[in-house]
């Protein structure tokens, strides 16, 4: 049954995967993320983190409040590289070509 309960839809991580992770000692939420892959897909945990944390709390007999979320990673949502290339915060290397004019850059 646990193999049919999906906790992370992006990476197909099931309750059985979580149980396996916990049984091997991978119980820290950061370890569980790496061992099962949950939260590493397009949603980056926005959908699945609460579900995994709740089940992890139950499996490890802790209150849910004892399990902090894993470190959230920028960007907030999947971001095309193209949107970043003219950011004024980028480091300029000595051989960087000058920025193209905005009119040439945008599609």
């Amino acid at each position: 049954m646990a193999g049919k309960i999906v906790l992370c839809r992006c990476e197909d991580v099931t309750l059985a995967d979580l149980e396996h992770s916990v049984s091997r000692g991978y119980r820290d939420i950061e370890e569980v993320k790496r061992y099962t892959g949950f939260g590493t897909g397009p949603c980056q945990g926005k959908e699945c983190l609460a579900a995994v944390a709740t089940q992890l709390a139950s499996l490890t007999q802790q209150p849910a409040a004892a399990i902090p979320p894993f470190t959230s990673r920028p960007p907030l949502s999947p971001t095309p590289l193209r949107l970043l290339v003219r950011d004024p915060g980028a480091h300029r290397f000595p051989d960087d070509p000058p920025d193209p004019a905005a009119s040439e850059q945008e599609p």
Partner: protein
Amino acid sequence: MQPVLDEEEDTSRADVSGEIRLPATLEGAGPLPASAEFVIVGGGVIGLSIAYYLAKRGVNDVVVIERGYLAEGASGRNGGGVRQQWSTELNIRLMQESVELCRRFAVDIGVNVWFRQGGYLFLARSAQEVTRLEKNVALQNRCGVATRMLEPRQALTIVPELDLTGIVGAAYNPTDGILFPWPFLWGYARQAAAHGARIFTQTPVSGLDPLNTGGYLVHTPRGAVRARRVINATGAWSPKLAQMIGVEVPTFPIRHEICSSEPLKPFLRPMVSELASGLYCSQSMRGEIVGGITIPGHDSTYGMGSTLEFLATYARRLVRLMPILGDIKVLRQWAGPYDQSPDGNPILGAAPGHPDFFLACGFVGHGFMMAPIVGKLYGEWLTGGQPHEIFTRYTLDRFSGATAAHHEKEDFNIG
């Protein structure tokens, strides 16, 4: 996405319900043993590799103590590159052996680490960079690595998506590769544990007291372990552990950032790296484009925050080099510490004046790729074998005394 572990198919270990029950690899709670032949501090790839080879060679009380969770440091934060394109003969030869161990890892260790030999393509934008590559390639060829110099147009046959504007030469070795770092750690951890090693996570070392009889009392919040020998495999944190017994390790942490994209259909065979900026990227077996860049001039820090400066700089250089990647989406970025040594080479062997305190640090961002061979050589040496050259040349005392001026520098650290 979880790699298949061979134990999952080992039904002989299943109980009546069909569930496979194995002892936990990691011990995140409970007391530590009172004593051990070896205490390895640091549950990264270096410490776990050494633990595996020691345990496999019959040392039955190896203890690994990890401050946080497994893969919390640089071992869980790197790009997974494994290359033989180095600038010194010793590093080239070490990496030839490490690549061979990576090739056999899935069979030897029983974990799929998604090792893929798609090669490494280094790109030069100046005549000086070409000269540097040519010198390295000649040395690599003498060692039996089949690196070759390419004209820019030849590089296009390997990566047709490159924009060759400003590229004046390239070096390519088809047997370099990439792997998925996390299962590499799980594999070493599981096999070390299967051979009797014990791995304690969530356990910071709070003190090291030298014992009159040799060895150390290793203090932790979960109790103290009397260790016959201690191995410092704490990566960028190595100077802090060494300071507990008054040993000065001249390495320092440099934060490097890295990012990963949405998964794409496989199209990019080699790791691509541009010398001018330290830009590198590869396509993992999950399909993600994983890459980073070196932004010069940052202070030494243990901070692991992410910056827009990094992502914008990476985007700018990567899209210039491979314009087609402008449309791919970044999913996440993170950071990890390089353990920067003064000459770019690791620091190994016993600390001078401390014959029971061993160092395995200063890997400058290439500890992951060197871990298989360094762990193997350490395991052989510390179970009675002859010390390999790395334990006489990569010692801490090379930075002081009469030989300080003569040691070789490694200048091909990337990313």
